[in-house]
């Protein structure tokens, strides 16, 4: 069973066994509109918490994706790069972006849980 956390920049991370799967939230995909291009990180790339790790581009804008925690990229979702629409359709499951091995699990404590994130998004509208 994995635990899911959220950032103020609208990324989610699902953590299990020292690894985290990262994507953008449903709110983020909705705000961006139809995604047309995704740039994924290289395997083995090390990233600090909050570092730029991927780019998602929609018909409206290009946006950086920031890594919710630091770690090393161990897998990327090629299906999302091939079909960016997957991120619009299933942002918080099949539309994940990359998986990383956590460098410091304590960083998760600074992130939001689902209820806190939902309240955060509510406050934005």
């Amino acid at each position, binding site marked *: 069973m994995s635990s899911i956390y959220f950032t103020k920049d609208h990324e989610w991370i699902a953590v299990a066994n020292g690894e985290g799967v990262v994507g953008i939230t449903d709110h983020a995909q909705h705000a961006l509109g*139809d995604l047309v*291009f995704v740039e994924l990180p290289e395997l083995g790339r090390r990233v600090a918490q909050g570092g730029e790790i991927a780019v998602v581009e929609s018909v*409206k804008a*290009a946006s950086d994706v920031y890594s919710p925690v630091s770690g090393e990229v161990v897998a990327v979702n090629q299906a999302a790069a091939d079909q960016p*629409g997957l991120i619009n359709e299933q942002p918080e499951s099949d539309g994940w972006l990359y998986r990383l091995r956590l460098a410091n699990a304590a960083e998760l404590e600074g992130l939001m849980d689902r209820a806190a994130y939902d309240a955060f998004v509510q406050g934005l509208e």
Partner: protein
Amino acid sequence: MIPTLSGNQGLQIEEPLIFEQDSPGASGVDLPDAPAIDDRLGGLARQGRIGLPGLAEPTVVRHYTRLSQKNVGIDSVFYPLGSCTMKHNPRLNEKLARLPGLADIHPFQPQGTVQGALELIDTCAHWLKTLTGMPAIAMSPAAGAHGEFCGLMTIRAAIGARGETRPRILVPESAHGTNPASAAACGFSVDPIPATARGRVDVAALKAKLGPDVAALMLTNPNTCGLFEDEILEIAAAVHDAGGYFYCDGANYNAIVGRVRVADLGVDVMHINLHKTFSTPHGGGGPGAGPTVLSQALAPFAPLPAVVHDAQGFRLIEHAAQSGAMPVGRIKGYHGQFGVFVRALAYMMSMGADGLRQASSDAVLNANYLLAELSSDLSASFEGPCMHEALFDDRFLKDSGVSTLDFAKALIDEGFHPMTMYFPLVVHGALLMEPTETESKDTLDRFIATVRGLARRARDGAAESFKAAPVLTPRRRLDETTAARTPVLRWKPPAA
């Protein structure tokens, strides 16, 4: 659309691509068949057709005439595309640019035969330096972003000459996308600066990010929210105190020409979009030009070529050895966008100092008229007054089911080019309107009445009519998503 047998809508002709009109053997001229010759190509002569369509002259004339009739531009409609400055291009500029002595010369001609052209570049440079109060200028950048590249390369060279390494460039969140792109192209990393609730740079956040690794701040003034950065003197001083340079993006210079000397703002380098501020055609109508003014500190690093003047006349400095400085090199072939210099200088000289000053004032007046008249029906993002453009966001469309995109498409059916949408990114669903000084009050009043009417229609629950727009165009709403995901970039003959 009314279905017709031909696909045409009255005299609005459904025009195929020129390749689809290929009629093999047809030609505008009656040439004799080529005689058989013994070539020495060893069997490498092309077999088969080269792929140019065969067309009679009347077909070609009609094709391009029909395409021109489909075009929408500043010559046909009000075009309030924010940040793009779609002002009228005076025909006097065009007339002068077509003078044979200016139009029919070549950059490789001996300099003694093009003294007038060199003087023209020098005179244009002189007035740009005078207007901005800056001591030096590079005339060769070919557009705004190219001017950014030029300016950042001089900054990099100046920092290198100081024996320092400064890898970071600070860029406000409201910046044009070219700013971070130019910084990255010059090898810098980009650090965004947040905006305040007043739509201006957060000076405290800026100061917190300044340090010995910061090469420059890139700031547009007025900014892309159409607001004057009123703390710019403090900002410039802070950047200089930290040892960095102040790059001013001059995309919105048209709002302050004749009113503000950018040198007085502490600017080290600024590009000037001649195609915006000085009324030369752009947006598909012609190339841009981005002459870049430089402070004394950056002047030695300006790219070549440069025009100089001495007792023998005008001449070009093209090599570092001739210049006695440390130029970053050459950033463009030849000497810059000469045809644009002709038009820009014609504009400056026909307007005069008083005319240029009135133009920037009228641009600001027109934008404030839109802001004032539309604020009750739309949602202005920031408290006015604004400078040359008025920024609204999509709060007035909340719960209407109508998006900024739908609203813009509805304007097309009303005979207006839409405003800029979804930029700047610092407000939600942005609608950025730049009327420019060349629009009359009548035109603005018609636009205001239309926008108000559309806003009320959206509020009254007519979302469906917006979703359908545009309905009066040769093509209905295009599928931007599919176009971006699977672009078709060139015509290919259908499979036989």
